[in-house]
């Protein structure tokens, strides 16, 4: 029986661009380029490796986002995913993590899955809670923050490197997995992959298709509210000295003046 893998990815603003907030205190997507979240590339990579190791597997890449989010799907398809699902609806604008996880869970169920994989966090919001929320909503085990992952005989195993300990984990499928940037270098799309991606199916879904009311998502349906966003004041220019043999001592003088020594 075919192993159905769904990779949840996010289209995020380029961190090297000038990211800021729009008037409604959501992310301003106009002035900055978007791309597939780097941390999700690791999830695509592990999905492809798990699929390669299985007798028969299909990798579907899923995103919730605006029209441009198709770019993130194309990138994942060009890496080797088989097909894509794009949940796109104007009413989704400004959804918080609770709303987004609801949409993802419904879309994953609609797609059909044995294994859901995502990155450890998005590179914009960096909350890192979507995988846990998905597992909660889907009612399946969470096997998260893995630096190593494998699937065999309907069982997922992996290593979770935490602050105080390293844990070996195991769960039966279906399950939700998230992987860290230690899970293995993500492949670059080949020219052949990029050409093939253009012919791969991208299915579009909206809130009606998923049976979700508009008031459950979007800015108005959010369970959190951002009241203000202020740009952090630029740091006042610091003292810069050139080392001419005494740089370490000068620095010690500064640290002593600040009472660190």
């Amino acid at each position, binding site marked *: 029986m075919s192993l159905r893998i769904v990779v949840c990815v996010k289209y995020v603003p380029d961190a090297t661009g000038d990211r800021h907030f729009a008037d409604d205190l959501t992310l301003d997507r106009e002035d900055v380029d978007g791309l597939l979240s780097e941390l999700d590339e690791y999830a695509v990579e592990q999905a492809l490796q798990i699929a390669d190791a299985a007798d028969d597997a299909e990798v579907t890449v899923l995103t919730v986002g605006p029209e441009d989010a198709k770019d993130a799907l194309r990138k994942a398809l060009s890496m080797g995913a088989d097909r894509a699902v794009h949940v796109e609806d104007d009413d989704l604008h400004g959804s918080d993590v609770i709303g987004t996880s609801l949409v993802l869970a419904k879309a994953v169920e609609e797609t059909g899955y044995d294994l859901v994989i995502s990155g450890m966090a998005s590179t914009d919001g960096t909350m890192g809670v979507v995988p846990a929320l998905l597992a909660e909503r889907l009612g399946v085990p969470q096997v998260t923050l893995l630096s190593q992952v494998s699937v065999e005989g309907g069982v997922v195993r992996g290593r979770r490197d935490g602050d105080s300990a390293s844990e070996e984990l195991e769960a039966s499928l279906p399950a939700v997995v998230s992987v860290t940037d230690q899970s293995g270098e993500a492949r670059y799309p080949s020219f052949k992959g990029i050409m093939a991606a253009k012919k791969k199916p991208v299915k579009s879904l909206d809130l009606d298709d998923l049976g979700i009311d508009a008031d459950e998502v979007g800015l108005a349906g959010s369970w*959190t509210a*951002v009241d203000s966003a202020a740009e952090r004041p630029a740091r006042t220019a610091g003292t810069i000295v050139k080392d001419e043999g005494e740089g370490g001592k000068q620095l010690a003088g*500064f640290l002593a003046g600040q009472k660190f020594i």
Partner: protein
Amino acid sequence: MAEVLVYVDHVDGAVRKPTLELLTLARRIGEPVAVALGNGAADTAAALAEHGAVRVLTADAPEFADYLVVPKVDALQAAYDAVSPAAVLLPSSAEAKEIAARLAVRIGSGIITDAVDLEAGDQGPVATQSAFAASFTTKSRVSKGVPVITVKPNSAAVEAAPAAGAVEALTVSFSEQATGTKVLSRTPRESTGRPELTEAAIVVSGGRGVNGAENFAVIEALADSLGAAVGASRAAVDAGWYPHTNQVGQTGKSVSPQLYIASGISGAIQHRAGMQTSKTIVAVNKDSEAPIFDLVDYGVVGDLFDVVPQLTEEINTRKG
């Protein structure tokens, strides 16, 4: 006064510092009721009472150690049902954030993660957060349900505020999902004797310029002279010179110490995301054009292998 649930991060009964900071913040909103789970849970009571916990709810069962995350969610939910709190606060560790998220969706509440400050507001607690690699500061609140908020280490000073800290056993019935993910083995991280990276008051980091695993001894020596934690940039970690657990940046840990010393680190946006909120920033780098110098309070343009050992020696001499 309303009660506020505080999830306790502890290792075999030893309460970690971010939880004590959390108790300080919780007192701005109400009366802290601490929830300690797992091996040594009851041993946390003295430290929690000293820092303001009016009650300490404890539970231990093999499930907490043998299965991932969900047993703790079940227990925190039991505490939530028993207390009817005004807010639920947790430290921003990877595990506690996952616990927070699952609890939030279960109790129909919004969630805020990685707050760097917290205050009482007319419409409930107001959380300050850093956004976009700490280039923005936002104020947010939970608008539905009982606020579930996770707070980053070093967001408040630990203050003693003795309270009753009465220990009460918490009754937990585990959900069907609780045993879904088995922990087959657990290998504790070997202690370096240095402070935990995210909790340290001073962090000394090395990057590409350190140029080799063995050269990190120079960084470690400086760290030890200051009683600091050691950090590393992604370039240094990817090169295999230092463990990933010490990585500072967007894909590693985010730190906010009183003093951050960057050596041989250029200051790419990914690194800045993890350290930009440090109170005082110092850098040593050969390249005077390195972007890290835009952030510093004090910078030395020079070879770190000249500057850092001289600094270490000078500190050790002054400590005398």
